[in-house]
């Protein structure tokens, strides 16, 4: 069962059907569970061939200019040399160049051949039907009426949707401004948006020096609650609904990125609360952005210093209290 859960998680991660939280969980797993990472890569290969059926679309020329610009900024000498010898690769039309794209040269006009009725071609044919039509067909006549009503409602709601999108854009802009230049915002707005950023500088800390993280396997079943005290540099783990270890030990890990190895924060004790010290060389910003995880290890903890057992729970930390507005004087 556990193996199947991991397998479907990897498959759904590649397919793209996971929620944002589930994706974070999967990404944390990838970073230090080689078996899970291998499962993801296998699914990328299994499902990846579907890209063959996607129509090629020529991107605007500026896209390449920007990519080239960023790469030249990284390695000026070689990029300049390259710029002299070759310009934009427009002489190579993608329809004639790409090994896989050659399939598309005539896609638009090609009909499936007489073998299309075979099992192999069926999914593609089925897929060609747009969802509303297909949904009607599948759901039968009765539910077909629901679909129609739904579509009408969609039409009426569209005005609201656009308004929501505008609000979302405004919010995004606001968050961007508050992160980059909090001083541009009025003080009463600055407080909320600046929450994360402002408090990364010690002198601007608010009343809360605590970060909390809920570690869970699925979004509805929190297993551990973590409280990170950034002043005392301790972490308190509270067991909420974690299962029994059965002779093994839960071990807590701090994951700071795909490339850095996970740092052990110690074994979780059998009492409701366990307190552990934070490693000295981890700064506040890292504690805020890190992923916290619990793996199941041999009794007493991992013998190697790296997670060896399955990673069962992961989570991110958030501030436990809003910081008070602290306008600069």
């Amino acid at each position, binding site marked *: 069962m556990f193996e199947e859960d991991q397998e479907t998680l990897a498959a759904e991660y590649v397919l793209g*059907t996971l929620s*944002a939280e589930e*994706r974070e969980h999967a990404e944390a797993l990838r970073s230090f569970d080689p078996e899970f990472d291998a499962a993801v890569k296998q699914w990328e290969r299994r499902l990846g061939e579907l890209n063959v*059926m996607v129509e090629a679309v020529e991107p605007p020329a500026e896209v390449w200019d920007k990519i080239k610009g960023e790469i030249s900024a990284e390695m000026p000498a070689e990029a300049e040399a*390259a710029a002299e010898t070759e310009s934009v690769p427009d002489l190579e039309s993608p329809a004639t160049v790409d090994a896989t794209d050659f399939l598309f040269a005539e896609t638009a006009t090609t009909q499936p051949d007489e073998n299309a009725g075979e099992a192999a071609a069926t999914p593609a044919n089925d897929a060609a039907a747009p*969802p509303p039509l297909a949904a009607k067909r599948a759901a039968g006549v009765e539910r077909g009426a629901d679909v129609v009503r739904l579509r009408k409602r969609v039409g009426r709601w*569209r005005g609201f*949707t656009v308004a929501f*999108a505008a609000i979302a854009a405004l919010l995004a802009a606001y968050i961007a401004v508050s992160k980059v230049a909090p001083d541009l915002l009025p003080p009463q707005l600055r407080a909320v948006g600046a929450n994360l950023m402002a408090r990364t500088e010690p002198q601007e800390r608010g009343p809360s020096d605590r970060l909390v993280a809920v570690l869970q396997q699925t979004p509805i079943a929190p297993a551990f609650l973590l409280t990170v005290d950034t002043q005392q540099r301790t972490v308190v783990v509270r067991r909420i609904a974690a299962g029994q270890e059965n002779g093994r030990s839960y071990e807590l890990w701090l994951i700071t990125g795909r490339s850095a190895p996970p740092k052990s924060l110690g074994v979780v004790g059998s009492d409701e609360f366990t307190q552990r010290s934070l490693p000295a060389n981890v700064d506040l910003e890292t504690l805020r952005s890190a992923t916290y995880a619990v793996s199941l290890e041999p009794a007493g903890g991992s013998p190697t210093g790296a997670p060896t057992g399955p990673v069962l729970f992961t989570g991110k930390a958030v501030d436990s209290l809003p910081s008070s507005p602290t306008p600069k004087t």
Partner: protein
Amino acid sequence: MLTQAELVELLAEVAKGDSGAFERLYGATRAKLYGVLLRILGRPELADEVMQETYLKVWKSAASFDPAIASPITWMVAIARNRAIDIVRKRGEASIEDEPEALSVAADTPPPLARREMTEELRRLLACLGKLDPEKQRIVLLAYYSGWSREQLARKLDIPANTIKTWLRRSLLEIRGCMGS
């Protein structure tokens, strides 16, 4: 025309920091990746952004490409889709997909190809997909091409979210069983 072997070679040169090879790789793959991204993101300005991120990542991590476990194009498409889906999930659903112009792009899966246009691997995958119920096939394909979450699939197809979850799980395990490792 570049073959898969030629793309593998290009990636190996890119891994050594050859920017000329990178430019040829871009020329050979850009339209495919852009097509994939447009379907998921709907909006060209977002697709442009993810194109840049994707190719920068390809530039930086070409050395980690392993021709034994992936083809160049599926590897690059995976990087692009991954990033696109991250963005769609994090922005929330309403801000992107419900805009009229986005709907027209992402609303359906691509037209079928004639059998002779398919790669061997694609034929195998489609044969396995073909063993699923038509409704489950559609869900898998819609998820792949449009980047929809379970919730979006449930809403758009008017099927309970739990049913979608069960179907996806079962379908994916069946596909794995059918295709072997």
